[in-house]
Protein backbone atom coordinates (compact mmCIF):
# COMPACT_ATOMS: atom_id res chain seq x y z
CA UNK A 1 0.00 0.00 0.00
CA UNK A 2 1.25 3.41 -0.91
CA UNK A 3 0.93 6.09 1.73
CA UNK A 4 0.48 9.71 0.80
CA UNK A 5 1.33 11.89 3.81
CA UNK A 6 1.06 15.01 1.69
CA UNK A 7 -2.72 14.84 2.17
CA UNK A 8 -2.28 15.66 5.84
CA UNK A 9 -0.37 18.83 5.04
CA UNK A 10 -2.85 19.75 2.35
CA UNK A 11 -5.70 19.66 4.86
CA UNK A 12 -3.77 21.26 7.72
CA UNK A 13 -6.32 24.07 8.00
CA UNK A 14 -9.15 21.64 8.76
CA UNK A 15 -6.97 19.85 11.31
CA UNK A 16 -5.84 23.05 13.04
CA UNK A 17 -9.36 24.38 13.09
CA UNK A 18 -10.67 21.08 14.48
CA UNK A 19 -7.97 21.04 17.14
CA UNK A 20 -8.93 24.54 18.24
CA UNK A 21 -12.58 23.49 18.49
CA UNK A 22 -11.59 20.43 20.56
CA UNK A 23 -9.52 22.56 22.93
CA UNK A 24 -12.28 25.16 23.18
CA UNK A 25 -14.90 22.49 23.88
CA UNK A 26 -12.75 21.02 26.65
CA UNK A 27 -12.08 24.37 28.28
CA UNK A 28 -15.60 25.76 28.10
CA UNK A 29 -17.07 22.45 29.30
CA UNK A 30 -14.82 22.55 32.37
CA UNK A 31 -15.58 26.24 32.95
CA UNK A 32 -19.24 25.25 33.24
CA UNK A 33 -18.81 21.84 34.88
CA UNK A 34 -16.57 22.90 37.78
CA UNK A 35 -18.98 25.49 39.24
CA UNK A 36 -21.82 23.19 38.18
CA UNK A 37 -20.27 20.27 40.06
CA UNK A 38 -19.68 22.41 43.17
CA UNK A 39 -23.27 23.64 43.06
CA UNK A 40 -24.65 20.11 42.71
CA UNK A 41 -22.41 18.83 45.53
CA UNK A 42 -23.45 21.65 47.87
CA UNK A 43 -27.11 21.02 47.04
CA UNK A 44 -26.64 17.31 47.73
CA UNK A 45 -24.94 17.91 51.10
CA UNK A 46 -27.19 20.78 52.14
CA UNK A 47 -30.07 20.58 54.55
CA UNK A 48 -32.87 21.02 52.01
CA UNK A 49 -34.23 17.60 51.07
CA UNK A 50 -35.87 18.66 47.77
CA UNK A 51 -32.59 20.23 46.58
CA UNK A 52 -30.61 17.16 47.67
CA UNK A 53 -33.02 14.91 45.82
CA UNK A 54 -32.91 17.07 42.69
CA UNK A 55 -29.12 17.01 42.72
CA UNK A 56 -28.95 13.25 43.31
CA UNK A 57 -31.41 12.60 40.48
CA UNK A 58 -29.46 14.79 38.08
CA UNK A 59 -26.16 13.15 38.94
CA UNK A 60 -27.44 9.58 38.77
CA UNK A 61 -29.22 10.26 35.49
CA UNK A 62 -26.29 11.72 33.58
CA UNK A 63 -23.56 9.65 35.22
CA UNK A 64 -25.17 6.38 34.20
CA UNK A 65 -25.88 7.11 30.56
CA UNK A 66 -23.31 6.61 27.80
CA UNK A 67 -22.01 10.02 26.76
CA UNK A 68 -22.71 9.38 23.10
CA UNK A 69 -26.36 8.79 23.97
CA UNK A 70 -26.48 12.10 25.86
CA UNK A 71 -24.98 13.81 22.80
CA UNK A 72 -27.69 12.37 20.53
CA UNK A 73 -30.30 13.09 23.16
CA UNK A 74 -29.22 16.73 23.35
CA UNK A 75 -29.33 16.98 19.58
CA UNK A 76 -32.84 15.56 19.16
CA UNK A 77 -34.57 16.26 22.48
CA UNK A 78 -33.27 19.68 23.57
CA UNK A 79 -34.84 21.54 20.61
CA UNK A 80 -38.21 20.00 21.52
CA UNK A 81 -37.81 20.74 25.23
CA UNK A 82 -36.44 24.26 24.84
CA UNK A 83 -38.20 25.17 21.61
CA UNK A 84 -35.00 26.49 20.02
CA UNK A 85 -32.63 24.89 17.59
CA UNK A 86 -29.14 25.41 18.96
CA UNK A 87 -26.08 25.14 16.75
CA UNK A 88 -24.07 21.93 16.85
CA UNK A 89 -21.26 23.36 18.99
CA UNK A 90 -23.65 24.58 21.71
CA UNK A 91 -25.56 21.31 21.64
CA UNK A 92 -22.36 19.28 21.99
CA UNK A 93 -21.17 21.61 24.72
CA UNK A 94 -24.43 21.17 26.63
CA UNK A 95 -24.16 17.38 26.46
CA UNK A 96 -20.56 17.40 27.66
CA UNK A 97 -21.29 19.93 30.40
CA UNK A 98 -24.23 17.89 31.73
CA UNK A 99 -22.16 14.72 31.80
CA UNK A 100 -19.01 16.23 33.33
CA UNK A 101 -21.00 18.29 35.88
CA UNK A 102 -22.46 15.02 37.15
CA UNK A 103 -18.99 13.51 37.51
CA UNK A 104 -17.59 16.65 39.12
CA UNK A 105 -20.49 16.71 41.58
CA UNK A 106 -19.46 13.30 42.89
CA UNK A 107 -15.82 14.39 43.02
CA UNK A 108 -16.61 17.51 45.01
CA UNK A 109 -19.04 15.66 47.25
CA UNK A 110 -16.28 13.26 48.24
CA UNK A 111 -13.86 16.16 48.66
CA UNK A 112 -16.19 18.15 50.89
CA UNK A 113 -17.08 15.08 52.94
CA UNK A 114 -13.38 14.37 53.51
CA UNK A 115 -12.88 17.65 55.39
CA UNK A 116 -13.19 16.97 59.13
CA UNK A 117 -16.39 18.11 60.85
CA UNK A 118 -14.28 19.95 63.41
CA UNK A 119 -13.13 22.36 60.70
CA UNK A 120 -16.70 23.54 60.11
CA UNK A 121 -17.27 23.71 63.86
CA UNK A 122 -14.18 25.86 64.34
CA UNK A 123 -15.44 28.23 61.63
CA UNK A 124 -18.94 28.36 63.13
CA UNK A 125 -17.48 28.94 66.59
CA UNK A 126 -15.85 32.11 65.22
CA UNK A 127 -19.32 33.32 64.26
CA UNK A 128 -19.21 32.45 60.56
CA UNK A 129 -22.38 31.44 58.75
CA UNK A 130 -22.60 27.96 57.21
CA UNK A 131 -22.01 29.55 53.81
CA UNK A 132 -18.95 31.49 55.00
CA UNK A 133 -17.57 28.34 56.63
CA UNK A 134 -18.06 26.45 53.38
CA UNK A 135 -16.46 29.13 51.22
CA UNK A 136 -13.61 30.10 53.50
CA UNK A 137 -12.69 26.84 55.21
CA UNK A 138 -14.22 23.73 53.64
CA UNK A 139 -14.13 24.36 49.87
CA UNK A 140 -10.47 25.48 49.69
CA UNK A 141 -9.45 22.27 51.46
CA UNK A 142 -11.80 20.15 49.37
CA UNK A 143 -10.50 21.76 46.16
CA UNK A 144 -6.90 20.82 46.95
CA UNK A 145 -7.91 17.24 47.56
CA UNK A 146 -9.99 16.92 44.38
CA UNK A 147 -7.54 18.73 42.10
CA UNK A 148 -5.82 15.51 40.93
CA UNK A 149 -9.20 13.89 40.24
CA UNK A 150 -10.41 16.96 38.34
CA UNK A 151 -7.24 16.87 36.26
CA UNK A 152 -7.91 13.23 35.36
CA UNK A 153 -11.45 14.17 34.39
CA UNK A 154 -9.99 16.91 32.21
CA UNK A 155 -7.79 14.49 30.29
CA UNK A 156 -10.71 12.08 29.78
CA UNK A 157 -12.88 14.97 28.66
CA UNK A 158 -10.25 16.12 26.16
CA UNK A 159 -10.53 12.75 24.40
CA UNK A 160 -14.28 12.32 24.94
CA UNK A 161 -15.03 15.56 23.12
CA UNK A 162 -14.49 13.47 19.96
CA UNK A 163 -17.95 11.97 20.60
CA UNK A 164 -19.64 15.23 19.62
CA UNK A 165 -18.45 14.62 16.06
CA UNK A 166 -21.53 12.41 15.65
CA UNK A 167 -23.69 15.53 15.53
CA UNK A 168 -21.36 17.32 13.11
CA UNK A 169 -19.53 19.59 15.53
CA UNK A 170 -16.38 20.58 13.64
CA UNK A 171 -13.92 19.26 16.22
CA UNK A 172 -10.67 17.46 15.44
CA UNK A 173 -12.32 14.04 15.09
CA UNK A 174 -15.08 15.33 12.84
CA UNK A 175 -12.77 17.31 10.57
CA UNK A 176 -10.26 14.48 10.26
CA UNK A 177 -13.02 12.03 9.42
CA UNK A 178 -14.45 14.40 6.85
CA UNK A 179 -11.10 14.74 5.11
CA UNK A 180 -10.76 10.96 5.24
CA UNK A 181 -14.06 10.41 3.46
CA UNK A 182 -13.27 13.06 0.86
CA UNK A 183 -9.80 11.77 0.05
CA UNK A 184 -10.08 8.08 1.01
CA UNK A 185 -6.75 8.50 2.83
CA UNK A 186 -7.92 6.50 5.85
CA UNK A 187 -4.62 5.48 7.42
CA UNK A 188 -2.97 8.86 6.94
CA UNK A 189 -5.82 10.84 8.47
CA UNK A 190 -6.33 8.43 11.39
CA UNK A 191 -2.61 8.57 12.10
CA UNK A 192 -2.57 12.36 11.94
CA UNK A 193 -5.51 12.46 14.30
CA UNK A 194 -3.83 10.05 16.71
CA UNK A 195 -0.61 12.09 16.66
CA UNK A 196 -2.47 15.31 17.46
CA UNK A 197 -4.63 13.80 20.25
CA UNK A 198 -1.62 12.04 21.75
CA UNK A 199 0.68 15.03 21.37
CA UNK A 200 -1.75 17.27 23.21
CA UNK A 201 -2.99 14.63 25.68
CA UNK A 202 0.39 13.33 26.86
CA UNK A 203 1.62 16.62 28.42
CA UNK A 204 -1.77 16.97 30.10
CA UNK A 205 -1.50 13.47 31.54
CA UNK A 206 2.01 14.29 32.78
CA UNK A 207 0.62 17.42 34.38
CA UNK A 208 -1.96 15.25 36.16
CA UNK A 209 0.79 13.00 37.49
CA UNK A 210 2.60 16.06 38.78
CA UNK A 211 -0.57 17.36 40.43
CA UNK A 212 -1.05 13.96 42.09
CA UNK A 213 2.43 14.14 43.55
CA UNK A 214 2.07 17.78 44.53
CA UNK A 215 -1.41 17.79 46.04
CA UNK A 216 -2.33 14.11 46.27
CA UNK A 217 -2.15 12.80 49.82
CA UNK A 218 -1.12 15.44 52.26
CA UNK A 219 -2.47 16.31 55.65
Amino acid at each position, binding site marked *: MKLDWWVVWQHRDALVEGTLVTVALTMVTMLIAVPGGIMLAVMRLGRSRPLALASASFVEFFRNLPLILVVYWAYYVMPILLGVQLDAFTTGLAALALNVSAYNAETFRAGIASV*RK*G*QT*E*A*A*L*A*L*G*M*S*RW*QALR*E*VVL*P*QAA*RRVLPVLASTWVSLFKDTSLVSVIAVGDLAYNAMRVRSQTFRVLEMLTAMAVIYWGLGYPQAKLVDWLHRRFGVR*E
Partner: protein
Amino acid sequence: MTRIPPTGSPAQAGPDLVLQYRGVRKVFGDFVALDGVSTQVRRGEVVCLIGPSGSGKSTLLRCTNGLEKPDGGEILFDGAPLPSDEAAMRPVRRRMGMVFQSFELFPHKTALENIAVGPRIVLGFEERKTRELGEALLAKVGLSDKAASYPANLSGGQQQRVAIARALAMEPEVMLFDEPTSALDPETIGEVLNVMKALAEEGMTMVVVTHEMSFARRVADRVVVFEKGRIIEEGPPEEIFERPKVDRTGEFLSHIGWSA
Protein backbone atom coordinates in the same frame (compact mmCIF):
# COMPACT_ATOMS: atom_id res chain seq x y z
CA MET B 1 2.55 49.36 68.45
CA THR B 2 -0.89 47.95 68.04
CA ARG B 3 -3.30 48.01 70.85
CA ILE B 4 -3.82 44.49 72.13
CA PRO B 5 -7.55 43.90 72.40
CA PRO B 6 -8.84 43.91 75.93
CA THR B 7 -9.34 40.36 77.02
CA GLY B 8 -12.03 39.99 79.63
CA SER B 9 -14.03 42.79 81.07
CA PRO B 10 -13.52 44.10 84.57
CA ALA B 11 -16.03 42.90 87.12
CA GLN B 12 -19.11 45.02 86.83
CA ALA B 13 -21.60 46.05 89.40
CA GLY B 14 -25.00 44.45 89.14
CA PRO B 15 -25.73 41.13 87.52
CA ASP B 16 -22.37 39.68 86.63
CA LEU B 17 -23.43 36.18 85.69
CA VAL B 18 -22.05 35.54 82.22
CA LEU B 19 -23.43 32.02 81.90
CA GLN B 20 -26.32 30.35 83.67
CA TYR B 21 -27.24 26.72 83.18
CA ARG B 22 -30.69 25.63 84.31
CA GLY B 23 -31.48 21.93 84.24
CA VAL B 24 -29.68 21.35 80.93
CA ARG B 25 -30.39 17.97 79.36
CA LYS B 26 -28.81 16.40 76.29
CA VAL B 27 -29.45 12.93 74.94
CA PHE B 28 -27.59 11.10 72.17
CA GLY B 29 -29.80 8.14 71.24
CA ASP B 30 -30.04 6.07 74.43
CA PHE B 31 -27.12 7.84 76.06
CA VAL B 32 -27.94 10.62 78.50
CA ALA B 33 -25.00 13.01 78.16
CA LEU B 34 -26.40 15.75 80.40
CA ASP B 35 -29.00 14.89 82.99
CA GLY B 36 -30.21 18.20 84.37
CA VAL B 37 -27.11 20.33 84.87
CA SER B 38 -27.40 23.64 86.73
CA THR B 39 -24.54 25.96 87.53
CA GLN B 40 -23.30 29.40 86.59
CA VAL B 41 -20.18 31.31 85.61
CA ARG B 42 -19.45 34.80 86.89
CA ARG B 43 -17.64 37.48 84.96
CA GLY B 44 -13.88 37.13 85.35
CA GLU B 45 -14.21 33.68 86.87
CA VAL B 46 -12.15 30.65 85.83
CA VAL B 47 -14.25 27.51 86.10
CA CYS B 48 -12.72 24.09 85.51
CA LEU B 49 -14.96 21.18 84.61
CA ILE B 50 -13.48 17.85 85.66
CA GLY B 51 -14.69 14.26 85.80
CA PRO B 52 -14.38 10.95 83.97
CA SER B 53 -14.55 10.72 80.17
CA GLY B 54 -18.12 10.72 78.91
CA SER B 55 -19.44 12.45 82.01
CA GLY B 56 -20.85 15.38 80.03
CA LYS B 57 -18.23 18.13 80.49
CA SER B 58 -17.49 18.62 76.81
CA THR B 59 -21.15 18.33 75.87
CA LEU B 60 -22.00 21.17 78.26
CA LEU B 61 -19.29 23.29 76.65
CA ARG B 62 -20.55 22.49 73.14
CA CYS B 63 -24.10 23.35 74.17
CA THR B 64 -22.82 26.68 75.46
CA ASN B 65 -21.93 27.99 72.00
CA GLY B 66 -24.63 26.09 70.17
CA LEU B 67 -22.54 23.39 68.50
CA GLU B 68 -25.00 21.04 70.23
CA LYS B 69 -28.61 21.87 70.99
CA PRO B 70 -29.81 20.96 74.50
CA ASP B 71 -32.87 18.70 74.62
CA GLY B 72 -34.12 20.33 77.79
CA GLY B 73 -33.47 23.09 80.29
CA GLU B 74 -31.95 26.39 79.27
CA ILE B 75 -28.67 28.23 79.01
CA LEU B 76 -28.52 31.99 79.56
CA PHE B 77 -25.68 34.07 78.19
CA ASP B 78 -25.41 37.55 79.63
CA GLY B 79 -28.91 37.19 81.02
CA ALA B 80 -30.60 36.13 77.76
CA PRO B 81 -31.51 32.57 76.75
CA LEU B 82 -29.47 31.20 73.87
CA PRO B 83 -31.44 31.51 70.63
CA SER B 84 -32.47 28.21 69.13
CA ASP B 85 -31.98 29.06 65.46
CA GLU B 86 -28.63 29.06 63.78
CA ALA B 87 -28.69 32.59 62.37
CA ALA B 88 -29.54 34.18 65.71
CA MET B 89 -26.79 32.13 67.37
CA ARG B 90 -24.07 33.73 65.24
CA PRO B 91 -23.82 37.07 67.08
CA VAL B 92 -23.68 35.12 70.34
CA ARG B 93 -20.86 32.89 69.09
CA ARG B 94 -18.81 35.95 68.19
CA ARG B 95 -18.77 36.84 71.86
CA MET B 96 -17.48 33.41 72.91
CA GLY B 97 -14.09 31.97 72.00
CA MET B 98 -13.73 28.21 71.61
CA VAL B 99 -10.55 26.16 71.77
CA PHE B 100 -10.77 22.54 70.65
CA GLN B 101 -8.91 19.44 71.78
CA SER B 102 -7.76 18.79 68.22
CA PHE B 103 -6.86 22.49 67.58
CA GLU B 104 -8.81 22.62 64.30
CA LEU B 105 -6.54 25.25 62.81
CA PHE B 106 -7.30 25.79 59.14
CA PRO B 107 -4.50 23.86 57.40
CA HIS B 108 -4.58 25.92 54.20
CA LYS B 109 -3.94 29.17 56.05
CA THR B 110 -0.80 30.43 57.78
CA ALA B 111 -0.76 31.04 61.53
CA LEU B 112 -1.38 34.74 60.89
CA GLU B 113 -4.23 34.07 58.45
CA ASN B 114 -5.83 31.66 60.90
CA ILE B 115 -6.01 34.46 63.44
CA ALA B 116 -7.07 37.12 60.93
CA VAL B 117 -9.85 35.17 59.23
CA GLY B 118 -12.46 35.65 61.98
CA PRO B 119 -12.18 39.44 62.19
CA ARG B 120 -11.93 39.69 58.39
CA ILE B 121 -14.91 37.50 57.49
CA VAL B 122 -17.17 37.91 60.48
CA LEU B 123 -16.44 41.46 61.62
CA GLY B 124 -15.50 42.82 58.19
CA PHE B 125 -12.21 44.33 59.34
CA GLU B 126 -9.89 45.47 56.61
CA GLU B 127 -6.75 43.55 55.76
CA ARG B 128 -4.24 45.88 57.42
CA LYS B 129 -6.15 45.96 60.66
CA THR B 130 -6.51 42.17 60.85
CA ARG B 131 -2.80 41.75 60.17
CA GLU B 132 -1.85 44.09 63.00
CA LEU B 133 -4.30 42.34 65.28
CA GLY B 134 -2.90 38.95 64.26
CA GLU B 135 0.68 40.03 64.86
CA ALA B 136 -0.18 41.43 68.29
CA LEU B 137 -1.93 38.21 69.26
CA LEU B 138 0.90 36.03 67.97
CA ALA B 139 3.25 38.07 70.17
CA LYS B 140 0.90 37.55 73.08
CA VAL B 141 1.12 33.75 72.74
CA GLY B 142 4.88 33.92 72.10
CA LEU B 143 4.85 32.95 68.42
CA SER B 144 5.82 36.15 66.60
CA ASP B 145 8.33 34.25 64.49
CA LYS B 146 5.70 31.78 63.24
CA ALA B 147 3.35 34.21 61.45
CA ALA B 148 4.05 32.72 58.00
CA SER B 149 4.12 29.07 59.14
CA TYR B 150 1.41 26.64 58.19
CA PRO B 151 -0.14 24.51 60.94
CA ALA B 152 1.52 21.36 59.55
CA ASN B 153 4.90 22.92 60.36
CA LEU B 154 4.05 23.79 63.95
CA SER B 155 4.26 21.56 67.01
CA GLY B 156 1.04 20.62 68.80
CA GLY B 157 1.67 23.14 71.54
CA GLN B 158 2.35 25.88 69.01
CA GLN B 159 -0.80 24.99 67.07
CA GLN B 160 -2.91 25.19 70.19
CA ARG B 161 -1.41 28.58 71.07
CA VAL B 162 -2.32 29.84 67.59
CA ALA B 163 -5.82 28.42 68.13
CA ILE B 164 -6.10 30.39 71.37
CA ALA B 165 -4.95 33.54 69.56
CA ARG B 166 -7.52 32.85 66.81
CA ALA B 167 -10.30 32.72 69.40
CA LEU B 168 -9.01 35.87 71.14
CA ALA B 169 -9.05 37.77 67.84
CA MET B 170 -12.83 38.03 68.13
CA GLU B 171 -12.42 39.79 71.49
CA PRO B 172 -14.66 37.28 73.24
CA GLU B 173 -16.26 37.87 76.63
CA VAL B 174 -15.79 34.26 77.62
CA MET B 175 -13.34 31.60 76.49
CA LEU B 176 -14.40 27.96 76.28
CA PHE B 177 -11.60 25.39 76.37
CA ASP B 178 -12.48 21.80 75.44
CA GLU B 179 -9.64 19.62 76.77
CA PRO B 180 -7.04 21.96 75.24
CA THR B 181 -4.03 19.87 76.27
CA SER B 182 -5.36 16.32 75.88
CA ALA B 183 -3.93 15.88 72.38
CA LEU B 184 -0.51 17.32 73.23
CA ASP B 185 2.85 15.73 73.90
CA PRO B 186 3.72 16.08 77.58
CA GLU B 187 6.59 18.49 76.86
CA THR B 188 4.35 21.01 75.11
CA ILE B 189 1.45 20.97 77.60
CA GLY B 190 3.22 23.49 79.84
CA GLU B 191 3.48 26.24 77.19
CA VAL B 192 -0.26 26.05 76.49
CA LEU B 193 -1.18 26.06 80.18
CA ASN B 194 1.08 29.09 80.71
CA VAL B 195 -0.78 31.04 78.02
CA MET B 196 -4.08 30.07 79.63
CA LYS B 197 -2.82 31.05 83.07
CA ALA B 198 -1.74 34.46 81.78
CA LEU B 199 -5.18 34.89 80.25
CA ALA B 200 -6.82 34.03 83.56
CA GLU B 201 -4.63 36.57 85.34
CA GLU B 202 -5.81 39.26 82.92
CA GLY B 203 -9.33 38.62 84.14
CA MET B 204 -10.69 36.63 81.20
CA THR B 205 -13.79 34.61 81.98
CA MET B 206 -12.89 31.00 81.23
CA VAL B 207 -14.66 27.66 81.24
CA VAL B 208 -12.10 24.89 80.95
CA VAL B 209 -12.77 21.18 80.48
CA THR B 210 -9.53 19.60 81.60
CA HIS B 211 -7.75 16.56 82.95
CA GLU B 212 -4.85 18.74 84.13
CA MET B 213 -5.61 18.68 87.84
CA SER B 214 -2.64 20.78 88.87
CA PHE B 215 -3.82 23.52 86.50
CA ALA B 216 -7.34 23.34 87.95
CA ARG B 217 -5.91 23.39 91.46
CA ARG B 218 -3.74 26.46 90.84
CA VAL B 219 -5.75 28.54 88.37
CA ALA B 220 -9.45 27.78 88.84
CA ASP B 221 -11.68 29.92 91.01
CA ARG B 222 -14.18 27.12 91.07
CA VAL B 223 -14.09 23.45 90.13
CA VAL B 224 -17.16 21.57 88.95
CA VAL B 225 -17.09 17.77 89.16
CA PHE B 226 -19.15 15.78 86.64
CA GLU B 227 -20.25 12.18 86.73
CA LYS B 228 -22.71 10.46 84.39
CA GLY B 229 -24.18 13.69 83.08
CA ARG B 230 -24.67 15.28 86.48
CA ILE B 231 -22.73 17.68 88.67
CA ILE B 232 -21.83 15.75 91.79
CA GLU B 233 -19.89 18.51 93.52
CA GLU B 234 -18.65 22.04 92.95
CA GLY B 235 -16.62 24.48 94.96
CA PRO B 236 -13.30 26.25 95.31
CA PRO B 237 -10.33 24.10 94.22
CA GLU B 238 -8.83 23.78 97.69
CA GLU B 239 -12.08 22.26 98.91
CA ILE B 240 -12.57 19.93 95.95
CA PHE B 241 -8.98 18.72 95.89
CA GLU B 242 -8.30 18.58 99.62
CA ARG B 243 -11.59 18.05 101.39
CA PRO B 244 -14.11 16.71 98.84
CA LYS B 245 -17.54 16.32 100.41
CA VAL B 246 -18.67 13.66 97.98
CA ASP B 247 -17.03 10.24 98.09
CA ARG B 248 -17.15 9.83 94.30
CA THR B 249 -15.07 13.03 93.88
CA GLY B 250 -12.36 11.58 96.06
CA GLU B 251 -12.51 8.29 94.20
CA PHE B 252 -12.22 10.04 90.83
CA LEU B 253 -9.26 12.13 92.00
CA SER B 254 -7.38 9.16 93.42
CA HIS B 255 -8.21 7.13 90.33
CA ILE B 256 -6.41 9.65 88.11
CA GLY B 257 -3.50 9.78 90.51
CA TRP B 258 -4.16 13.02 92.35
CA SER B 259 -3.02 13.04 95.93
CA ALA B 260 -3.94 15.98 98.09
